[in-house]
C-alpha cells in the first residue's frame, strides 16, 4: 500500500496550501507542524468531529477472476477480495464513515476537551 512518508503528523497542520499543482500539502510542512497538528486535531475534536487514524485495509487474498482482456492486469489482479471484485459497480448508495480519517502512523496525541483552553 502506498503511504505518505511525511504522513499524518503534518496532515492536519493548518499549513496554507497556496500552489497545489501536484504538490503535496503535507510535504511543505516542517517539524513545527507537529504542534499545529495537535492544535488542529484538538480543534476538530472540540467541534464534535471524530478524528481517527486509519489505514486502507489490504485486500485479503483470493483468486477472484478479473474480467479483462489484458494478461498483465489479470496476473496482477488475482489477489483481490472476491466480494469487491464481484461487487456491482453501479449507482447503489455506499456507506461512508462519519469520522475524519488521517493516516494510521499519526502520532497518538491525547486530547482532553476539558483541558482545552
Amino acid at each position, binding site marked *: *500500500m502506498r503511504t505518505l512518508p511525511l504522513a499524518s503528523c503534518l496532515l492536519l497542520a493548518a499549513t496554507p496550501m497556496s500552489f497545489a499543482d501536484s504538490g*503535496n500539502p503535507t510535504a511543505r510542512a516542517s517539524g513545527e507542524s507537529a504542534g499545529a497538528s495537535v492544535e488542529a486535531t484538538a480543534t476538530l475534536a472540540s467541534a464534535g468531529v471524530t478524528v481517527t487514524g486509519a*489505514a*486502507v*485495509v489490504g485486500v485479503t487474498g483470493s483468486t477472484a477472476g478479473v474480467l479483462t482482456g489484458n494478461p498483465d492486469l489479470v496476473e496482477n489482479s488475482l489477489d483481490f477480495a472476491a466480494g469487491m471484485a464481484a461487487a456491482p*459497480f453501479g*449507482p447503489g448508495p*455506499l456507506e461512508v464513515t462519519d469520522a475524519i480519517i488521517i493516516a494510521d502512523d499519526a502520532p*497518538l496525541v491525547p486530547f482532553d476537551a476539558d483541558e482545552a483552553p
Partner: protein
Amino acid sequence: MRHALAGLPALVLTGFFTLPGAEAGSGALPISPFAIEDTADFSKQIERDLAARGARVALVFRTGRYREDLPDGVRYTHGAFWVWSEIELADGTRTHGYAVHNLYHHADETRVSYLAQDWPLNFTQGDVVGEVGVILPSPEMQRRVWMMLVSETDEALHQPDYSLLSNPHDPRYQNCNEYLLDVIAAAAWETMDREQIKANLTAWFEPAPIRTGLFERLLGPSVDERIRLEDQRGTIRTTTYSALARFMSEHRLSSEAYEIRADFLDARRASLPAG
C-alpha cells in the same frame, strides 16, 4: 539589473506561470481562507456525495490557486482518484470511506513525482475556493480502474519525470492530471503499454490549449523548474479537468461530470446579517 530581471517574470507571467516564490516576494502569498473544521466538513461532504451516487471510483479535482490566477479555461490544479475502500481504524474496527490516490511531485525535487495514497482531508486542505470538479467513470470503467489501483498495476504507468504542463500526447513527462488520463486510457484500451497509450491518446484525446505569449514561453522554464517544454510543439497543451471530462463523456467512459460547492460557503453567507 539582476533585480529587474528577477522581478520581470512575476509581472509578465500569469496562470500556471505565476510562481509562489514571486508571490511570496511580493508579500501576497495566498493562504487557504478556510478553517480546518470547514475543510474537514467539505471533505466529508464530497465523500457523502460520491457515496450517494454509488461511486467506487471517482476523479476529483481541486484548485490550490484562485481562479483569477489560472489560465483561461483552467479551473483546477490537481486531480486524484477517490476510491471507496475498506478502512481499518486505529482501534481495529473496520469501516468504509474514500482513499485518495495521487501523483505528487516532491517538495524539494519538484521535477520528480511519486504516487501516494492519502485521505480526503489531505485533498481539501489544498483547496482554496471551496469547490471541486468530479468525473464519475462508467460502472465498467470504475471496475477496471479500481482493479488497477488496488493491485497497484497503475505504477507501471507512472512517469516520474514531472512537468507542470506536460503534453499528454508525449511520454516524456507526466503531471497529476496526465497520470489520471493515462490510467483511464489504460483501463479503456486494456493495455499497459505506455507508448501505445500515447499513440491512442494522440488520436483520440484533445488536450486543453494553454495560451501563452513568447515571453512566458521563454521565461517560464527559467523561473519555475517544474515547467519543461521539451515535449511541447506549437501551442502548449496539457490535461485539464474539462478536457478529461469531455474525452470520457464523448467515448462513454463516464456517467457524470459535475462540480461540488462546499456547503460551508453558503452557510457562511446565510449567517450574514441582513442589510
